[in-house]
């Protein structure tokens, strides 16, 4: 059984729906990458899963249950985590406090998870007492990912984790995403660096006008001449 399965999801912010039937299935071992033109509903799909916009049709099955329209305070304890694209750290709070907030829904001792995050991003351990707002863009992205991992998610969703980062950091973030996946966390991400991301994706989804237009393994999408021509810039 898939970790998460979207069946013909329709939804939007009231008014005309932005998603017109999105289908997706992600296994625990998968890195799923959503690509597509602007306004195709890529980020919207992630937000719909996370209960941040109204789902009016279809089902989102997670852990054997339909979780459509559940709010984050119910989804996070069940193993779903989300890293928004922008404003994804608490700028006035220290790095460590940011991580603690990620563990808000946990009642058990989370110091081991924090150690794990610090091992993954050693620079954060150095700056644990600094306000997250003082960090560079790449380091903030690490804080944001670390925060999302603190709840020990089964599925980590990232909205354009490489946006606005220098090539060096893009590479590092992608490496860490692969590492997190290897540790047993399913990944579903939206990415503008489509070619690079599909290179390590086990599943790729091309969205257009709120619908799937192509689905396949990362390699299949990269090799597909039509996808390459219309979405990946030739």
């Amino acid at each position: 059984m898939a970790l998460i399965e979207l069946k013909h999801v329709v939804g939007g912010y009231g008014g005309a729906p932005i998603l017109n039937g999105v289908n997706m299935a992600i296994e625990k071992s998968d890195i799923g990458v959503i690509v597509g033109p602007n306004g195709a509903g890529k980020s919207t799909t992630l937000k719909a899963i996370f209960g941040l916009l109204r789902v009016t049709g279809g089902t989102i099955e997670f852990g054997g249950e339909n979780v459509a329209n559940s709010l984050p305070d119910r989804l996070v304890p069940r193993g779903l985590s989300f890293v928004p694209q922008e404003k994804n750290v608490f700028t006035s709070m220290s790095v460590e406090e940011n991580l603690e907030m990620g563990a808000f829904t946990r009642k058990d001792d989370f110091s081991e998870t924090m150690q794990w995050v610090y091992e993954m991003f050693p620079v954060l351990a150095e700056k644990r007492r600094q306000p997250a707002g003082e960090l560079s863009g790449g380091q903030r992205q690490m804080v944001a990912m670390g925060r999302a991992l603190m709840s020990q998610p089964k599925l980590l969703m990232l909205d354009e984790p490489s946006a606005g980062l220098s090539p060096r950091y893009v590479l590092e973030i992608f490496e860490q995403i692969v590492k997190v996946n290897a540790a047993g966390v399913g990944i579903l991400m939206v990415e503008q660096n489509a070619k690079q991301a599909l290179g390590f994706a086990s599943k790729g989804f091309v969205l257009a006008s709120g619908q799937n237009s192509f689905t396949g393994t990362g390699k299949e999408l990269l090799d597909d001449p039509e996808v390459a021509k219309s979405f990946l810039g030739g």
Partner: protein
Amino acid sequence: MNEFIFFINNVVVSGLVLGSVYALGGIGITLVFGILRFAHFAHGDMMTMGAFVTFLLAAMLTATGIVLPIPLAIIVLPFAMLITAGLALGIDRGFYQPLRARGARPVTLLIGSIGVTLIIQGLIRLVFGTGTYSFFDEAPKVLYRVPVPLFDAQRTINFTQPQVLMVFATILVVVVLHLFLTRSKFGKAMRAMADNADLAQVSGINTKLVIRVTWIIAGSLACLAGTMLALDVTLKPDLAFNIVLPLFAAAIVGGLGQAYGAIAGGFLIGFAEVCAVFNWAILLRPFKDRFPEWFEIPNNLAIVPTEYKLTVAFVILVITLLVRPTGIFKGASS
């Protein structure tokens, strides 16, 4: 020396007391703004309401014939704070929550809170009339006179028992609030929500519960501040409505959403007000001989007359906003 003691009594003691009231009221305003993003105009009346709750409880206790060396208001204060916190939760449930649920903008909530102001004031007048009340009908305020064994001082440093209790209560509240915001999981969640409400929600923080905790803190501190103000002056239906503007000035000067900012802003504005109305000529008089003969010390060297005290808060507000638009502690800009 006597002149200096006069200065201590009129500026240092008064400034501490006024600053404490502004700080406690300002904390509530700034916390509500930080979490709910609207200017809670009814906060002053929440203070008045809290003071009347304390007054009622104290009157009930007095009726039983108990006499204690400290004002009964202090004994019943913890219960009054609990009741006021409950009332604050009720007000949120009844008026603000339905507006939020409909996606009202902050300005709508602000107007709503002006309505709440009118309701609270109306209800208080309906029950208690428009007169003034004193907590000290039974026993007079205890006055402490501290002699100064220096030079030839005849005057004493004076303060009343409620003033001492007030300053200590403020210190206690500030320490507890600091520990709550920096050490406890919920305090941190409150700061997280004030920092970035969307991300707090995404992190799985129960934002509705945080809102409730905010009202509990704001309501109980409003009760404390209102009671202290009423103990220092007298209790009347427009007790704290009159100081709602300096309260906002304290919160804004300190940086909206920053609890420490409101404390600093409260004391800054409190001291500025008493300094501005203090007659500085008094301090110059002992040095009369040192001035050249043609110079005569004017009778009144106060910066503003007492009636214009309220303008001081605005001058400070304007200067702060010009120099540091987000306040001393870098609060929200919107």
